[in-house]
């Protein structure tokens, strides 16, 4: 029965079906939530009412009230990501290339990485105030270590053959840095990109949640203060969607910038 054109269309139609199933799953989760709270199996005071949550989300977007908050969170995320990555690359390159500095600083780096850095948020709030700066600072401490360790590893694991070959081609130390270490480290940075963007986002939201005057985390904090659980859930829904969008943007950027790397045989979706 299956014609040639039918089997060619087979793949996209399978994809479309998968997408439908995915949406159905989401709808089912909301329906289950609705059923459980509407029938009173779960108290709606603690678990919210999905219809109210969705209406709240709709109101935020239709009135435009959410946009300034989202913008604040986005700016914090982007700044924390950019600054954390920059610092992480610089420190990773430096320590990766200097054995002495690496062995001197090793225990301190381990200690700093082991510390739950969220506890720094109050200190940053005192130092930098309740504005954007304290959230960016928190995000930086989260992003820095991910990027740092990846770059450090990347520098250490540059193929010795490639290194020897490039040296034989006449590269100076600076040229080695620019043509070998930096691109190699960049590929490691990109492999950690999803994690580090996510961490920048976590830093922004947690920072807002712990004390702020704007941002999606601030909306959640406000709602929680008045036991408005529906708004808390609405905030979570918005944050999740936002995080997904960020992740999507990262995937796009990655594809453009890492054309030289072999694609994984099974493409991740």
């Amino acid at each position, binding site marked *: 029965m299956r014609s040639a054109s039918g089997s060619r269309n087979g793949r996209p139609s399978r994809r479309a079906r998968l997408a439908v199933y995915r949406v159905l799953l989401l709808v089912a989760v909301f329906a289950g939530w609705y059923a459980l709270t509407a029938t009173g199996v779960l108290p709606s005071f603690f678990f919210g009412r999905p219809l109210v949550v969705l209406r709240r989300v709709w109101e935020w977007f239709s009135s435009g009230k959410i946009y300034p908050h989202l913008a604040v969170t986005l700016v914090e995320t982007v700044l924390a990501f950019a600054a954390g990555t920059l610092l992480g690359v610089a420190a990773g390159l430096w320590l990766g290339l200097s054995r002495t500095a690496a062995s001197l600083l090793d225990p301190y780096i381990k200690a700093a990485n082991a510390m739950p850095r969220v506890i720094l948020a109050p200190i940053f709030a005192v130092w930098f105030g309740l504005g954007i700066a304290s959230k960016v600072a928190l995000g930086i401490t989260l992003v820095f270590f991910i990027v740092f360790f990846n770059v450090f590893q990347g520098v250490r694991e540059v193929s010795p053959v*490639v290194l020897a070959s490039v040296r034989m081609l*006449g590269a100076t130390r600076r040229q080695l840095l620019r043509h070998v270490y930096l691109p190699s480290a*960049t590929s490691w940075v990109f492999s950690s990109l999803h994690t580090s963007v996510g961490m920048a986002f976590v830093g922004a939201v947690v920072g807002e949640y712990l004390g702020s005057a704007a941002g999606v985390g601030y909306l959640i904090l406000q709602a929680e203060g008045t036991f408005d659980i529906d708004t808390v859930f609405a905030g979570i829904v918005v944050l999740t969607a936002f995080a997904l969008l960020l992740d999507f943007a990262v995937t796009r950027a990655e594809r453009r910038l890492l054309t030289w790397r072999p694609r994984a045989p099974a493409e991740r979706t």
Partner: protein
Amino acid sequence: MTPAPAGAAPVLALDHVGVEWPGATAGAPPYVAVDDVSLSVARGEFVSVVGPTGCGKSTLLNVAAGLLAPTSGDVLVGGERLSGLNRRAGYLFQADALMPWRNARENVEAGLIFAGATRDEARERAEQWLRRVGLSGFGDRYPHELSGGMRKRVGLAQVLILQPEILLMDEPFSALDVQTRQLMENELLDLWSAERRSVVFITHDLEEAIALSDRIVLLSAGPATRPIGEFAIDLPRPRDVAEIRLTPRFLELHGRIWAALRSEVLKAYAVSQRLA
């Protein structure tokens, strides 16, 4: 070992070179990888260094390249003592040495860019060299998009574009299938006869060595590798590596050299069995 041809100093000479690695534990005797090797390569000469696996052939090549300082002895380049990297040599490695983040053309350009050439100039000459190694139109491909043989060609172009006086090659074709390998060997001979660089070619494949070289240096099994014989290969040029293997003279040379190499291969095998 061989006196330099009358007149000119050899392009490359190893003078009583020894290489030792520190012992595995403190107080353990050092491991002698290479023991008292002397070797000279004349201008335009194609010399193959043949020895059983694990005999320190690559170590010797790294010394000649200046990537590794010998524990004793000297490396002379054009009669001068080498310190640091050997700037007159190009090195084709056994493993893939292309920068994976650059496409074929950018890899070939690299040496020129390092030397301060302008983008346009480097690009033009890289395209020329890609053509010469049969890869015109593949400049935009990244190494992972090329086959093993193509990557070797890019590597060859990358090294030859700098026109090194000495070409050091460390089993460059060992990872290729037989057909591709013979193709590459013939191409190498073509490029070499056009440019007449000196070549030091390391291999464990005696047939490959005879087909390509002017002279073969046999190394003993490790540890403490040293040369145990030299054979002039007087086969006529130009050669076709596949056809020349069938000539009587080739078989005669092969028989003679193999007789000398055989006992070393057996020794190396015995050592590997003892370690296993």
